[in-house]
């Protein structure tokens, strides 16, 4: 252990994350710590409130994966109150879910992750004509690919650099030996960075149509608030539906003709990253995209299951309702559990925050002590990875043909075996392949909505249990979804028409968790082990692997008691 590398803040993520990595004298990472350094306490804020409002509070857990907490929340309350939403509401929610997933994955690839692989300064040396030739070869169906276009962009870049104000690109790791793309590929990627930034404003308008705004569109317990009426100009009608369809068509173009080709092109220059960053090898998926109600798991487009130890021959069942499967530990988290307890189910959870880290400001954390505001959730005692790679692997291992097709096609194009998926690059590629499935599912869900309207059903809300007077005195429910970053579940306990308890276990807590009582690393930590670093002062390698998970730390919002100190009964992140 000759060197300790500290990356804090980890940028191009949501929220606040600190990574400390211990390198041996050959510059290889031998131990790593993932520390969540923020904490907001939303679950306690929810206590005593109207459960119909909970979606709005929990949606504010995250503005990047905006909507996923709202979706999990309305599902939890509907589960508790036994509300079955109309089929149109299920379809519209699926459309909003997929819109978010596609837009979020594209933003992640281009704006949060690409600069780990793309050297902006190298792009200055690119020959515009050669870049055009490359672009037309790599992405033949993407229209912006002329030599003139790239010449203008190259001039723009040069002038930007010459202005002396480099903004978000200053002081980065340009020229680092880990960057492998030729100048022309870098220039093409910069062009697509800017095009994706412009385009992401478009697709998300689907949220504005059905939810009134984005970020943070509106949801509704019982269905959707936006009514559909083909006979009025004041509800969702043919005009808006056509707009939705046009936006989906545009998204298909972006994903098929720009994102996927870029992903495969970049991946082809970094084959060594199919052997780095694999990590745990344990994957968990709750599943999503119901086709016949949220309780019919067999009809989900995204199947549920667990894969352990990279064994794709065996998919194990997982039940987010069975709390015996999920337990949280705090051996390395800034919380205390009452005497004699080392792991607790979310339903019986305790959160007694107790910061025992170093006095501020500090230089380093203690890997043998407590070092994070995140707890360590475990499935049957195993540390798990969640997210796009988990979903693609469980879909693949479940024998779902759609999953097998896109995975097989990509592996064939890159001439890689399936085992290449267990890696940093595999994680990044899985996100792109999932986006490809998602954007076509998006059109399929749109068609499903139109078919329903054609059959004469335009209802979007079940209001039979809207009034609190119609509720039982006490009810418990849970609501899950597959957020862009992985498996998410909310648990709600309603008593006397108010929220008695609200608990959330989010994807980034699974992935970014610290070690547990047995010393098992969380997914980020495990994925960093054995990574060689070329220059410990410029941690490109760490950023590649951490960004491949798409961290979202605001979700790590544990609870504090009303006195700002302690509390029992209310768990969680």
């Amino acid at each position, binding site marked *: 252990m000759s060197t300790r590398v500290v990356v804090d803040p980890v*940028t191009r993520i949501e929220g*606040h994350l600190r990574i400390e990595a211990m390198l041996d004298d050959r510059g290889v990472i031998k131990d790593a710590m993932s520390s969540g350094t923020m904490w907001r306490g939303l679950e306690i804020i929810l206590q005593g409130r109207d459960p119909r409002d909970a979606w709005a509070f929990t949606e*504010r857990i995250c*503005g990047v994966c*905006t909507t996923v907490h709202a979706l999990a929340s309305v599902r939890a309350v509907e589960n508790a109150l036994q509300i079955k939403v109309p089929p149109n509401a299920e379809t519209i929610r699926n459309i909003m879910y997929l819109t978010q997933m596609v837009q979020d994955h594209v933003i992640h690839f281009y704006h949060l992750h690409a600069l780990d692989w793309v050297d902006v300064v190298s792009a200055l040396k690119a020959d515009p004509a050669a870049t055009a030739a490359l672009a037309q070869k790599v992405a033949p169906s993407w229209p912006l690919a002329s030599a003139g276009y790239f010449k203008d962009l190259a001039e723009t870049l040069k002038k930007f650099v010459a202005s002396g104000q480099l903004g978000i690109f*200053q002081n980065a790791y340009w020229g680092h030996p880990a960057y492998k793309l030729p100048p022309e590929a870098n220039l093409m990627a910069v062009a697509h960075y800017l095009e994706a930034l412009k385009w992401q404003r478009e697709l998300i*308008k689907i949220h504005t149509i059905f939810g009134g705004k984005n970020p943070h569109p509106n949801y509704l317990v019982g269905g959707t608030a936006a009514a559909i009426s083909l006979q009025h100009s004041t509800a969702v009608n043919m005009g808006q539906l056509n707009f939705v369809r046009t936006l989906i068509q545009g998204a298909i173009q972006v994903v098929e003709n720009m994102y996927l080709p870029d992903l495969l092109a970049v991946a082809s220059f970094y084959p060594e990253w199919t052997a780095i960053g694999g990590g745990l090898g344990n994957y968990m998926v709750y599943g999503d995209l119901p086709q016949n109600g949220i309780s019919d798991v067999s009809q989900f487009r995204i199947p549920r299951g667990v894969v352990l130890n990279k064994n794709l021959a065996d998919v194990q069942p997982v039940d987010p309702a069975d709390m015996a499967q999920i337990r949280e530990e705090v051996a390395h988290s800034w919380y205390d559990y009452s005497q004699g307890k080392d792991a607790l189910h979310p339903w019986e959870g305790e959160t007694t925050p107790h910061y025992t880290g170093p006095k*501020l400001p500090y230089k380093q954390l203690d890997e043998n002590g407590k070092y994070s505001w995140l707890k360590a959730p475990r499935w049957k005692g195993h540390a798990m990875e969640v997210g796009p790679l988990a979903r693609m692997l469980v879909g693949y291992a479940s024998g779902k043909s759609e999953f097998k097709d896109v995975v097989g096609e990509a592996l064939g194009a890159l001439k890689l075996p399936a085992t290449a998926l267990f890696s940093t690059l595999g994680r990044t590629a899985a996100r792109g392949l999932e986006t490809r499935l998602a954007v076509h599912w998006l059109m399929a869900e749109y068609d499903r909505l139109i078919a329903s309207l054609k059959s004469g059903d335009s209802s979007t809300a079940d209001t039979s249990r*809207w009034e609190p007077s119609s509720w039982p005195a006490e009810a418990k429910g849970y609501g899950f979804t597959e957020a862009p970053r992985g498996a998410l579940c909310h648990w709600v306990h309603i008593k006397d028409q108010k929220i008695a308890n609200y608990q959330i276990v989010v994807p980034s807590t699974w992935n970014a968790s610290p070690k547990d009582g047995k010393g098992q690393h969380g997914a980020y930590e495990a994925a960093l082990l054995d990574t060689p670093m070329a220059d410990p002062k410029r941690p490109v390698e760490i950023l590649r692997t951490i960004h491949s998970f798409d961290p979202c730390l605001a979700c790590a919002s544990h609870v504090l008691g009303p006195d700002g100190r302690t509390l029992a009964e209310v768990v969680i992140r």
Partner: protein
Amino acid sequence: MDLLSQKASTYEVLREHGVDRRSFIKFCTMMAAALGLESSMVPTIVAALENKPRLPVLWLHGLECTCCSESFIRSSHPIAQDVVLNMISLDYDDTLQAAAGFQVEEIRQRIMKEYAGEYVLAVEGNAPTHDDGVYCMVGGDSFLNILKETAEHAKAIIAWGSCASNGCVQAAKPNPTGAKPVYQLITNKPVINVPGCPPIAEVMTGVLTYILTFGNLPELDRLGRPKMFYGQRIHDNCYRRAFFDAGQFVEAWDDDGAHRGWCLYKMGCRGPNTYNSCANIKWNNGVSYPIGSGHGCIGCSEPNFWDNGPFYERLTNIPLIGIESTPDAIGATLAGAAVVGAGAHLVSSLIRRGTQSPASRETQKPASQTERR
């Protein structure tokens, strides 16, 4: 400052990006319109953008959800790319920054020194104050300390969104981490509050371009909000206002009134008490806004809006129809005769529609505005 004069002006950068003068003037004219300025102000904008170097901006993130950044990149006039590459110099921003770790800390230190008194500090999120700020730490120090340090030499501070302006969700009761908005922590600098969860994208870029153009802050109301975007109630600009006046309301989700786009007042809409531009600028390049898509406004740009719920309970404190008032005067109105006004209006709508007494569902609540600073 000499340092600034060495840098390229916004116009120069735009020229270098292939923008011709005609398009540039057109852009300036559109900006003037977006900012609600007289056409005689266009030459001022042109002159400012031609001659000023790009404004250094340090964009810090505290306890927040990043929805403000996400909204910002959705801006259509101007688009985020133009703001970030051509108008300002976004020198520090956790979300988009290429560098990480100590390299970004170096940037912050350098800008604070080289551009002392010249840079703008943009704050997304707020600072937890309990337990020495350990609930939000960046680079091994508390966000609270970093915020104070970065504010010290800032020319001005923009508080993005409701977290930085009002406290927002983590400051809702019982505010477990002691989260406080910027104006309560930094009292010796001008702070411009741009509330909303998140603020509308074009409001964010509008505030930035105003500062860039005129070199000072836009006129603010007593809550520190730019009057040009927060000067009117959503209710006053809402296309469903006519149905409110006519007593035609949505009574249940997906009912006939919902199909006909009637007023959402009875479903808890906060439009009558919320000062924002949602009904006129609208969201995501004018596509819709919450009320336009069938859900009431939840008042997300108002102080303490999380604690003024439940969201689906109707307001009882709407000012009388036809009263035109300023944000400053409205608080007094709400605290006083407002309840009577809404009541009288409801009686008239009741007679017209023949429904059951709405008064039976009403709950008296204190006027939110009276709690403001």
